[in-house]
């Protein structure tokens, strides 16, 4: 399959158009930091999440989760080869609020 690198887009700019009702309570957690570090060379969550919720931090040697970016597509749960992502819905009324959708 063609895996030519496409020009990188500023995802934050895209997310700037999205309205959220922010919740202080995280709705996404990683079950094990070790799984990301030692057993997942590809880290598909960090590339395929359309809202860049997941970022590999080389210095911290871990995947950092920005749950407040989440636009609730649910892809991460299916993507994670180690089934390491616990992604529930935000509490009722919180999270993304599409004005168009």
């Amino acid at each position: 399959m063609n895996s030519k690198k496409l020009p990188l887009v500023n995802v934050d700019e895209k997310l700037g158009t999205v309205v959220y009702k922010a919740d202080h309570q995280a709705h996404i957690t990683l079950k094990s930091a070790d799984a990301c570090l030692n057993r997942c060379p590809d880290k598909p969550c960090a590339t395929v999440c359309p809202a860049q919720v997941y970022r590999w931090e080389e210095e911290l040697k871990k995947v950092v989760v920005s749950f407040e970016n989440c636009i609730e597509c649910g892809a991460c749960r299916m993507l994670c080869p180690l089934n390491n992502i616990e992604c529930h819905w935000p509490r009722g009324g919180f999270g993304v609020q599409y004005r168009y959708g």
Partner: protein
Amino acid sequence: MSDDRFDSIVVGAGPAGVSAAIAMAKAGLKVVVLERGEYPGSKNVQGAIMYTKMIGDSVPAFWKDPQAPLERPITEQKFWLLSKDSFFQAGFKSEKWLAEPHNCYSVIRAPFDRWYAKKAEEAGAEIYTGITVSEVIKKDGQIVGVKTSEGDELLADVVIAADGVNSLLAQQAGLLDEWTPDEVALGVKEVLSLPREKLEDRFNLENGEGTTIEMFGDNTQGMMGYSFLYTNKDSVSFGVGAKLSHFQKTGIRPPDLLEYAKSHPMIRRLLKGAVSQEYSAHLIPEGGFYSMPPLYAGGFLIAGDAAQMVNPSHREGSNLAMTAGRLAGETVVEAKKKGDFSAVTLSTYQKKLEASYVIPDLMDVKDLEPLAEKHMDLIREIPELFSQVAQDYFNVDGRPKHEVMKSMLNRVLTHSGVQKTLKKEMTLKNQWILTKMALKFRFLLWKSMRGK
């Protein structure tokens, strides 16, 4: 609310859930719809094209309602095969499609879902928003209610799971496993505003009509998927989607793919000056018939995306959801009359779906995606091949036409992808199937010529 008992609890105020609620409320049942978003539509994403027939089944003559948030009746539908620098087009536009009732409309889901949910309220259903259902309540093997994440318990004779592509409820009820990246597509989309006059000039539209373009080829970078462009009143919806497993394999970032698709020379000019109003992403269940969960259990029905009711080859989904929701609602109405909500009684839902277009359509296309996946090498090459053949045909270079035709045919037959596919598919068994089809056709021809 916690003391209330309902005939039916519907989880999710999307097309499936609201259609179910309308069918039940119209029959006088006590119905509640629980929606986790702050308003119906706040979590939902679609292209979006909605079909008149299926909305009308729930809300008769809705197009006469000035409040109905319809963007444009669609009078033109086009398919493009995109090579790097060209498109090959097939399409249809008709004045007939300007007459009411229209075939379909472009809509924006957030306002549409709000309006549609209001119709359920007007029919007598209660709609509670901002409520996340966390689990089903079971008693003696029968599902008898739901528990919200705030800890409230609601009881009902039947729970209808219309909670969308990530049906945590169906999973939690034990009817569904987590889907794999092969069974879903990931779509990313933007709504881009464009002044009405400019939009109508650019897309050759008058009388408020709208157009759709589905594009296959270069814009998905070899992944199985397509992009779409739908015209709204003052904006354009543009998105691109591909199988989640293909995103996983290529490591392509969805927003990068979206920008890449938007920058294609044939698309760029259509979006020139349009300003992004909102970025969104959603999963589309595309596993089809083979991925469908059991659709009923004691006290429980599943409808819409939650049950993989999407026909990707015809870009239909919300209409299947509406029909399934309505049939689920009618099933509950009948069960209520019998006073029996067992799996046996609710199994009529399955029979209704089989008698409608929903299951037959899903059956018809069930092997399409595996077949396409097998021939991705060829499918990736087809747009470029079409582009070359079209150039052969339309370019005038002084050669006699029969020579041009010969070189076009040669181009196709000597194409490595075509040859590979022919070698793979021209097995004795397939040759036999083709021969049988030819004989059958010959027989029909013979019969029609004899006037029978």
